[in-house]
């Protein structure tokens, strides 16, 4: 065969190769001495629509990574196979920062960052899928604050991910809207999962164990985004949360008592249902007002329209911890009831009544224990105040927010 024919034969083959390259539309990085620079350069020069593949192995990074190009997928070989290791990190408030829209992170791990693990800020449509963030030395105050950390974002999906060792919250979604956190595992963090100053969130199918507190739904003052609402926490396993609080003081989670299952603080329209709560030593479900003084006229410190129903309770309440544990047992004694509400309402309502739309409702199986601590009365005249343990007084319901739907789940499912 002449060489001319060989060229013709090779052409279709070449074409196939080109197609294959086009389909992946991106670059592959393999571990090695220049991998850190190659990866960061790939993140800067990525084309929208492309994928950056991270081969199996450990990547040693001394600076934080960042992505600011929209519509990019970062894909590893598996959360236990592709590891971005930041043990020698010299700079950067987080390991990986994403500031662009429509980004998918999947199948890799981020370990031992000095600050937060992976942060996405101001990003619309961010997906964390089978991502692992861990601090390998176990729970330590010197670990970074947040593992998976979407903030000021829209359409947030965290699924099948694992976070261990965060000194604040393992999976933390702050000042965001339209959120699903599902089928993930959070262990040995101060808070397993936290939804803060956010609206329209579904948290379900997660296993949250050996943290200080399991799942927190908080709203805090003096922030650009406040008034968290419409949060559903359901079908989660919240079991054996028994790690002593190792958050640096000053942080709001520093007050969370070891063995808190679910805590709802401030917020409106929070529904907690079908969860399994087991062996949470302080209390399974705590509903509370923001405890600190604040200077912010736009902030509502009280939880409003909370519905607790159909959960399963087992053990727990026998080892109340810390200041919060002390305050509760000072009123209820030990064991602490399954569900505790501090009973603090705005002063005008305390003197009159709370409208049906704003109340706390509980609808649980017989045998579930409950206490309204009546903390206002308790502070004013503790000698004649006893908690209201009559769960029947809290019968009723408020409309449940509809299921969160995310655009990034529309194409795949």
């Amino acid at each position, binding site marked *: 065969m002449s060489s001319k024919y060989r060229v013709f034969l090779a052409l279709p083959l070449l074409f196939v190769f080109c197609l294959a390259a086009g389909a992946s539309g991106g670059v592959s990085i393999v571990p090695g001495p220049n991998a850190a*620079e190659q990866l*960061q*350069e790939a*993140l*800067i*020069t990525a084309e929208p629509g492309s994928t950056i593949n991270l081969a199996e192995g450990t990547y040693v990074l*001394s*600076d*934080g990574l*960042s*992505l*600011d190009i929209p519509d990019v997928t970062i894909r590893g070989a598996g959360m236990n196979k592709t590891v971005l290791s930041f043990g020698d*990190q*010299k*700079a*950067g*408030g987080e390991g990986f*920062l994403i*500031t662009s829209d429509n980004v998918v992170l999947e199948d890799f791990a981020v370990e031992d*960052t*000095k*600050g*937060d693990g992976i942060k996405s*800020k*101001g990003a619309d449509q961010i997906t964390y899928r089978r991502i692992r963030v861990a601090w390998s030395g176990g729970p330590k*105050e*010197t*670990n*970074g*604050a*947040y593992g998976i*950390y979407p*903030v*000021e974002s829209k359409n947030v999906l965290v699924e099948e991910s694992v976070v261990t060792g965060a*000194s*604040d919250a393992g999976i*933390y979604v*702050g*000042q965001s809207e339209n959120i699903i956190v599902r089928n993930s595992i959070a262990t040995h963090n101060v808070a397993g999962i936290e939804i803060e100053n956010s609206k329209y969130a579904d948290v379900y199918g997660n296993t949250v164990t050996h943290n200080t507190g399991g799942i927190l739904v908080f709203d*805090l003052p*003096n*922030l*650009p*985004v406040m008034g968290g609402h419409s949060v559903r926490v359901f079908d989660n396993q919240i079991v054996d949360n028994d790690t002593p609080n190792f958050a*640096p*003081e*000053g*942080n*709001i989670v520093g007050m969370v008592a070891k063995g808190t299952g679910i805590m709802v603080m401030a917020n409106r329209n929070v529904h907690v249902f079908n969860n399994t709560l087991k062996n949470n030593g302080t209390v399974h479900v705590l509903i509370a007002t923001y405890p*600190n003084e*604040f*200077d*912010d006229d736009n902030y509502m410190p009280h939880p409003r329209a909370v519905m607790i129903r159909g959960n399963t309770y087992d053990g727990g309440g026998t080892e109340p911890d810390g200041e919060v544990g002390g305050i509760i047992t000072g009123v209820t004694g030990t064991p602490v009831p399954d569900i505790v509400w501090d009973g603090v309402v705005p002063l005008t309502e305390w003197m009159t009544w709370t409208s049906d739309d704003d109340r706390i409702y509980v609808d649980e199986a017989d045998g579930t224990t409950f206490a309204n601590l009546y903390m206002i009365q308790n502070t004013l005249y503790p000698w004649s105040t006893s908690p209201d343990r009559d769960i029947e007084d809290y019968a009723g319901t408020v409309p449940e927010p509809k299921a969160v739907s995310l655009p990034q789940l529309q194409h795949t499912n």
Partner: protein
Amino acid sequence: MVIRLFISLAILCAAAAEVFAAPVNDDALMAAKPARTLSEYNLFNDPKKQTPNAGVVPYDLITPLFTDYASKYRFVYVPAGKTAEYRDREVIEFPLGTTLIKTFAYPADLRRPDETVRIIETRLLIRQENGWKAWPYVWDEDLGDARLKVAGKRLEISVTDHDGAPLVIDYAVPNANQCKGCHALNKEITPIGPSARNLNSDYPYDDGTDNQLAAWTDRGILSGVPQSGDIPRATDWQDASQPLEARARSYLDVNCAHCHRLEGPASNSGLFLTAWENDPPTWGYRKRPVAAGRGSGNLEYDIDPGNAAGSILIYRMKSLDPGIMMPELGRSMAHKEALIMLEEWINGLD
């Protein structure tokens, strides 16, 4: 006779300009892809001495950003026939093609900032059609040229420190994304330094000292400066004759507020440090930390009045730990002198 002399002089000058200084390369500045080497832009006549080309104007800021005691040489280039517009509060509005040039350099001895200065890096911010572009160029060892480093670079720089001891600075050239980490306003790359308030001071030009805003106006590169003279002026944080509060807020404005403002990368913290922020909890007064993690240092407030040692702001500015330190980028050392000033300010707050 006199006329003939003028003509020949003019011809001579033009010829000299032809030979010694090609004009700034506007095409290279406006190209979608950045030049591989800094010399392609023709911004300097003598790069080693940082002598600018015609049309490239040096400037200074009243209170600059602290970057590990680096010396900085700043220049602005506005293409011929174009004019920047004055802004009262934000950075001046620059026209297309504008290039802000900042060269980082270290003296061999930090106590003698003007002697044996070695230039390290030149950063460009170029105003193109689709926004500002940020490109870092690292100088060759022999200072022949500087090369583009999109992914950034770490450099070890040996100097003698303020106490006369040898010091190795772990200098970080930012990558293009890190540039945006600070230079972002509403998610767009934006210059930080050249605001009217921070330019409103005298500069010793070759042809005499003049107020920078007036000089820019005279050169035709700036318009709209109020004739009333009612122009905000930043306070020099080092000027002990000025009120401590003004010095402190000016320092925080320049060093922190590019991120710590509603439109900036640290908006989620709720701590906003612009010079014009008047709500006490918002500028840190008895403000509790939000997402600080161990950055809180077991302390309750960003600024605890009367208690600098108990204020998170001071704790984070002193720290060199990446998980704690503020700012997050651009320093590997603490700014001791500024900390003394800020501590004095906080200790004096009620």
